[in-house]
C-alpha cells in the first residue's frame, strides 16, 4: 500500500467570520464549528478557545487530542467506520494540518484527568504544549449517562477535526512524505537480505473510558489482526480512552504513531517493515491468553525476524505486554518492548506489574509517579475544580500560591508508551 501524506503547516489559529486556511493561518468561524459540535443533541453547549505554545494557559480535563486530516485521493475517508463510511484506508493521498490539534475537554467522570500546560515545567512533559490547540469544552444535556457523554464528546471532536481537515482539501501541501509497504511475496523479492519486522501495537480495551476503536469496532471484541502501517494515518484507530492521562494514546498519537514513522524511516534500509499487528488488553485473563497466542502466531506466520511491541495504560496491560513478549520471543522473533514505569514517588518500587527474563530489550517512557510542581497559570480552559481529584493528585496538591504539586501521570501524554517523547528513566 502506498500513501502520500501532505503536510500543511499551520502557523497560527484565529477566530474569524469565515473558516479557511490562508498562508498557513487557520481561520475558524466559531459559529460554524459550534454548529458542527452541536449536531449531537446530547451536547447542550460547547465553547471554543485557542491555546498557543508559550501562553500562560492550562487545559484540563483533557479527553482527546486530534489532528485534522482530509483524504484527497484514494479509497475511504478519515476516521473510517466512525465519521467516514467503512472502506479500507491507507492508500492514495491524505493532507494533515501539522502544528495544530483539536483538544476535547470536559468532565465526564468526577475523577477525570489530563492536563496540558502551554508553558512552564509541565509543558516540557506534555507533547501537546508544542501544538496550536483549538480547545472545545462540551457540556452535556442534564442527567446524561457517562457512557453517552463520553461517546458524544468523542464524536464531536472527530466531527470538528474532519470539518477543519476539509478546509485543506484544495490546498497545496508544504511538504509531502510517501509511505509504502509491499505485499508478502513482493517484499521477499524486493528485500531478500533484509530482516522482516513488524510493529505489534496493544490497544487499551477494558471498558468505559478505557476503549479504543478500529474502523469503529470496539477493540475488546477483536482478535489480533494485521493492518497496513499506513491505515492509522487515515484515522483507522481512534481513542475512546480518557483514563491514565500520561500513558493513554490520544487519537493524535494513533494518527502520528511514532513507531510506525520510525520503522518506515528504516524500511528498505535496515529492515523490511512488513506489517502493523494490533492486539488488545482485555480484563479477562483467558482473552489475554488468546490474544497473545494470536500475536505470536501472526509473527510466526509472517516469518518475522523482529518486532517492536508498544503498550497502553497501567497495571493490567503490563501482563499483556509480558505475555506478548514471552510468546513472540519463544517463536524465535526478536522483541523490543516500550512501556512506562510506576516506580513510586521515590523511584524505589517495582516499576511494572509483571516481568519475565525474555523482556531483555525495554524502552521506557519514564516514571509516571515523579512529582512535579506546576506553577499557577493565568488562564484555565476547562475547569480546575477536578484537578485536585485526578490520578496522581493528592490532598496537598493545591499550594497556597496557586501552584499544583502533582505526579507526571496527570499530564496528557507525558510517559507515552509508543515512544512519543524523549523522557526516559534509569
Amino acid at each position, binding site marked *: 500500500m502506498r500513501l502520500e501524506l501532505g503536510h500543511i503547516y499551520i502557523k497560527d489559529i484565529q477566530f474569524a467570520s469565515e473558516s479557511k486556511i490562508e498562508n498557513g493561518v487557520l481561520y475558524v468561524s466559531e459559529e460554524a464549528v459550534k454548529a458542527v459540535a452541536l449536531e449531537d443533541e446530547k451536547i447542550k453547549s460547547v465553547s471554543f478557545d485557542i491555546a498557543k505554545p508559550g501562553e500562560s494557559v492550562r487545559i484540563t480535563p483533557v479527553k482527546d487530542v486530534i489532528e485534522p486530516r482530509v483524504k484527497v485521493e484514494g479509497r475511504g475517508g478519515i476516521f473510517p467506520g466512525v465519521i467516514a463510511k467503512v472502506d479500507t484506508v491507507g492508500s492514495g493521498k491524505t493532507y494533515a494540518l501539522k502544528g495544530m490539534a483539536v483538544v476535547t475537554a470536559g468532565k465526564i467522570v468526577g475523577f477525570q484527568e489530563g492536563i496540558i500546560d502551554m508553558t512552564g515545567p509541565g509543558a516540557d512533559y506534555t507533547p501537546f504544549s508544542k501544538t496550536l490547540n483549538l480547545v472545545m469544552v462540551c457540556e452535556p444535556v442534564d442527567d446524561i449517562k457517562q457512557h453517552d457523554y463520553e461517546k458524544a464528546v468523542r464524536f464531536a471532536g472527530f466531527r470538528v477535526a474532519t470539518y477543519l481537515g476539509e478546509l485543506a482539501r484544495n490546498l497545496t501541501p508544504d511538504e509531502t512524505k510517501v509511505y509504502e509497504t509491499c505485499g508478502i511475496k513482493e517484499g521477499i523479492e524486493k528485500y531478500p537480505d533484509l530482516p522482516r519486522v513488524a510493529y505489534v501495537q496493544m490497544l487499551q480495551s477494558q471498558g468505559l473510558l478505557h476503549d479504543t476503536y478500529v474502523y469503529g469496532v470496539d477493540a475488546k471484541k477483536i482478535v489480533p489482526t494485521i493492518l497496513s502501517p499506513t491505515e492509522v494515518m487515515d484515522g483507522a484507530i481512534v481513542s475512546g480512552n480518557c483514563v491514565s492521562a500520561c500513558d493513554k494514546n490520544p487519537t493524535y498519537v494513533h494518527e502520528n504513531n511514532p513507531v510506525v514513522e520510525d520503522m518506515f524511516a528504516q524500511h528498505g534500509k535496515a529492515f523490511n517493515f512488513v506489517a502493523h499487528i494490533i492486539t488488545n488488553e482485555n480484563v479477562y485473563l483467558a482473552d489475554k491468553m488468546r490474544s497473545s497466542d494470536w500475536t505470536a502466531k501472526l509473527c510466526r506466520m509472517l516469518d518475522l*525476524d523482529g518486532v517492536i511491541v508498544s503498550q497502553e495504560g497501567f497495571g493490567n496491560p503490563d501482563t499483556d505486554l509480558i505475555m506478548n513478549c514471552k510468546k513472540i520471543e519463544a517463536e524465535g522473533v526478536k522483541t523490543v518492548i516500550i512501556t512506562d514505569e510506576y*516506580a513510586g514517588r521515590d523511584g524505589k518500587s517495582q516499576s511494572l506489574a509483571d516481568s519475565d527474563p525474555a523482556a531483555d530489550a525495554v524502552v*521506557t517512557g519514564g516514571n509516571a509517579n515523579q512529582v512535579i510542581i506546576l506553577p499557577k497559570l493565568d488562564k484555565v480552559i476547562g475547569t480546575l475544580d477536578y484537578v485536585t481529584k485526578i490520578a496522581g493528585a493528592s490532598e496537598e496538591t493545591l499550594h497556597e500560591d496557586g501552584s499544583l504539586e502533582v505526579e507526571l501521570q496527570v499530564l496528557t501524554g507525558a510517559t507515552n508508551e509508543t515512544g512519543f517523547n*524523549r523522557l526516559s528513566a534509569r
Partner: protein
Amino acid sequence: MANIKVVHYINQFFAQIGGEEKADYPVELRKGEVVGPGMALTQNFKGEAEIIATIICGDSYFNENIDKAKAEILDMVKEQAPDVFIAGPAFNAGRYGVACGTIAAAVQEELGIPSLTGMYVENPGADMFKNQVYMVATKNSAAGMRDAVKKMAPLALKLAKGEPIGASCQEGYMPNGVRVNFFEEERGSKRAVDMLIKKLADKPFTTEFPMPDFDRVEPNPAVKDLAHAKIALVTSGGIVPKGNPDHIESSSASHYGEYDITGVMDLTEDTYETAHGGYDPVYANEDADRVLPVDVLRDMEKEGIIGELHHLFYTTTGNGTAVASAKAFADEFSQKLKADGVDAVILTST
C-alpha cells in the same frame, strides 16, 4: 576558590606504602595531605573542592578488625567534618572494594555526610553496597583511574552541594534500584528501532529497564528413599537460640549461624527466637517451629517417614540481605552439608 571540603579514603597500595605484605597497615590520618589518586581527584575538582585529609588503611587490617577500623575511621571523618566523603576507587580489588563500600555507607548513614565510592562492577563490594551509596562504575584495573575520577569528581561536587543527582547513565554511577527520569536525545520509538536493529544483528544493546533479577534454580530430582534420607533444615527466617549468640543482624545480614539441635525435640519460647526484623516476630518467638519445623521433623523421624534430622541447622535473616552475601553463605554451608552426608534440605523462609 575551593570551599568544598573532601576527606578521601584509600588503601595501603594506593598510598604507595606497599602491596599484600603491608595489608595489615593500621588506620592512619594524614591531615592536609593529598595522596595517590587524590591528586587526580583534585585536578578534576577544578578548584571547586579540596581534599583536607586522607585516611589510609590496609585492606587486611580493615577486613579483619572491621568494627574497630570502622569506628576509628568514623571518628576521624567526624572530626574533619567534610562536605563529602570519597572512598577509592577500588577497581577490581575485592577486599579494598568491600572496605570502600562499608566505610562510605557508614559515613553516610552514621554521620549524615554524603559519600561515594567507585569500583568495577564485578567487585564483590559492588553488589553489597551499590544500593546504599553512589558507586561509580570503573574499569577492572587502575589503568582506568583517569576515567574513574572524571566521573567521581563531578558527582562528589554535586553531592556536596546537595544538587539533584541525575539518572545513573548520565552520572556514571551503578544502577541503585532508584529510577530517575531524564530526557534522552532521541524519542522512545527511535530508541526502540535502534535497539531492535542491534538485537537483530546480535550486537550488544542496553535495555533501559532491566527486568528484576531472576535467579531460578532447577530443583533436584525428588528424594527416592525418604525413609533413609538425612534431612537438614536451613532458614532465612532468622531462627536462632534465645539471645542470638552470634548477633545475626535483623536486616542485611553479614553472616549466618550454625546451631546444634541434637536432642532438641521442640523449639520453645524459652529456647529459640527470631532475629529477623522484617516481619512481625510475635508468632515466631512464641513457637519458632512455625518457621523452622523441628517438632514436625522429629515426629517424622520417629514415625520412620524420614531417616534422620541432621543435627545442625543453618540460619540467617533474609531481610534486605544482599543476594551476593546469601550466595556466599550458601556456598560455604552447602559444602558442610555435603560433607556431613545430608541427602536433602528443607529451606524455609517467612
